[in-house]
């Protein structure tokens, strides 16, 4: 195996010394693929704020603070506190009315809806989440990670645990990880839980249980001095209330296509999800290329593929620039329908939620990391543009609905500002 790169004798000696120094650090690392603390660091603080805005839809502000305590024996313990503020509107699931409409709210505010406009429902919510994680290496080649989370919002509470054991094999060239998780969630829709596929007038009060159990098998492998690859298979089993209580489905006239009535959303009470993720990190001469591909399938017959690539270019020792792109495609769930025909028998399950329809998401963005003034640590700014497209003219559309775009593209911009430092 070649240890040296071509160069002058002095340069080669210096380069070799530098590499041996880094190699000594590498020997101290537990898995080659895992992160480790810089020498001397005891506590790391990470703070980020997400500003997310969909054009004419939802707006999110999400500050997150994480503190990680790094112990000398390789253990680490982290606590993360996050807060989301979500406002705006999301599609109700109903089809365009087909005629110009105006509504007057109790406060006297008049809103108008064009004939082909997608009806939306205004909402506002706040979510607070706390995550904890403890990582401990033992026996030279094992690392355990135990995590827990709790979150609460107006209509949703979650409490969960997860764990993972990783073992390094083949002199740290191969890492095998096995993990599992369990989350006990409860859904308490505002105004009560409507009966599925009903007019929504009958509701039950109280919380609905939703339980998510998961398993993970991951393998990461060093293929060369520059190349690390990994395969991760995850399985999620969801049981309980999986319906979206605020979504509806229009009942249209089978000839004119005008929506005459509507029923509530109803989804199966179980869902099995499987994903296979292939990841690669490749070190070029100076820059690093990250690439991944994920295949996903579930028992609701949703299939999706996600491809991501990013390219990190270090401008100097403390600044880097990283453009990235993501491409996502999914087909529709078996019970997705843009609308139902009035008078026909209702199916067992149905949803008009576009997130379960056929859609494509394009993302393009870039991250810039830099030190600021004499402050310790690193600032990060990331900007993304996300465009999501559904099927605007489905074959099942009837009458007037054929004239409208039933799934207009949603353009989103997001900005993340982060700051990390150690002391």
């Amino acid at each position, binding site marked *: *195996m070649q*240890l040296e790169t071509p160069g002058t004798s002095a340069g080669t000696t210096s380069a070799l010394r*530098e*590499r*041996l120094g*880094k*190699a000594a*650090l*590498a020997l101290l*690392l537990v898995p080659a693929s895992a*992160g480790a603390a810089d020498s001397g660091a005891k506590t790391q603080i990470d703070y*980020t704020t*997400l500003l997310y805005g969909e054009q004419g839809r939802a707006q999110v502000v999400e500050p*997150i603070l994480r503190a990680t305590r790094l112990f000398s024996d390789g253990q680490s313990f982290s606590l993360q506190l996050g807060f989301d503020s*979500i406002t705006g509107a999301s599609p109700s699931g109903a089809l365009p009315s087909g005629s110009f409409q105006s509504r007057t709210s109790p406060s006297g505010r008049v809103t108008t809806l064009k004939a082909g406009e997608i009806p939306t429902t205004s909402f506002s919510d706040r979510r607070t*989440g706390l995550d904890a994680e403890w990582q401990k290496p033992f026996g030279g080649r094992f690392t355990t990670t135990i995590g827990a989370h709790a979150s609460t919002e107006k*209509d949703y509470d*979650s409490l969960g645990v997860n764990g*993972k054991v990783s073992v390094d094999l083949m002199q*740290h*060239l191969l890492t095998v990880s096995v*993990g*599992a*998780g369990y*989350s*006990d*969630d409860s*859904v308490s829709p505002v105004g009560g839980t409507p009966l599925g596929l009903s007019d929504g007038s009958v509701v039950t009060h109280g919380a609905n249980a*939703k339980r*998510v*159990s*998961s*398993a*993970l098998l*991951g*393998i990461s*492998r*060093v293929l*060369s*001095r520059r190349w*690390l690859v990994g*395969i991760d298979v*995850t399985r*999620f089993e969801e049981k309980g209330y999986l319906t979206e209580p605020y979504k509806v489905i229009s009942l249209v006239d089978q000839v004119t296509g005008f929506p005459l009535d509507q029923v509530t959303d109803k989804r199966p009470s179980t869902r099995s*999800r*499987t*994903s296979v*993720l292939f*990841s690669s*990190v490749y*070190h070029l001469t100076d820059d690093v290329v990250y690439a991944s591909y*994920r295949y*996903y*399938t579930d028992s609701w017959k949703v299939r999706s593929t996600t491809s991501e690539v990013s390219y990190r270019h270090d401008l100097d020792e403390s600044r*880097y620039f990283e453009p990235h792109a993501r491409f*996502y495609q999914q087909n529709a769930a078996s019970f997705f329908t843009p609308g139902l025909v009035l008078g026909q028998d209702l199916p067992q399950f149905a949803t008009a939620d576009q*997130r379960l329809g056929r859609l494509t*998401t394009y993302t393009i963005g870039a*991250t810039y990391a830099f030190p600021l003034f004499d402050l310790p640590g690193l600032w990060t700014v*990331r900007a993304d543009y996300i465009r999501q497209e559904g099927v605007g003219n489905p074959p099942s559309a009837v009458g007037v609905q054929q004239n409208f775009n039933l799934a207009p593209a949603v353009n989103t911009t997001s900005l993340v500002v982060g700051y990390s430092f150690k002391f």
Partner: protein
Amino acid sequence: MKISVQWWLRVGVVLALPGFLAGCASVKPWDRDLLAESRMRFNPCPMLHSIDEHIYFSKEASMGGQSAAGGGCGCN
């Protein structure tokens, strides 16, 4: 016979796994300088990754990656 993407994926995994596990590359510890860099990780910025997972979970029907943690948000 209709051959699905899932079938091809399974075949790909079965064919790739032996080479992936055994491999012909043997990177000696003193040759792992590049691998030791903090950026040589699948997710060098865990918080950005976590934000991404949250965003896409709320907009799409899929989930799953490198973590067994699930649930925790009523956004979808």
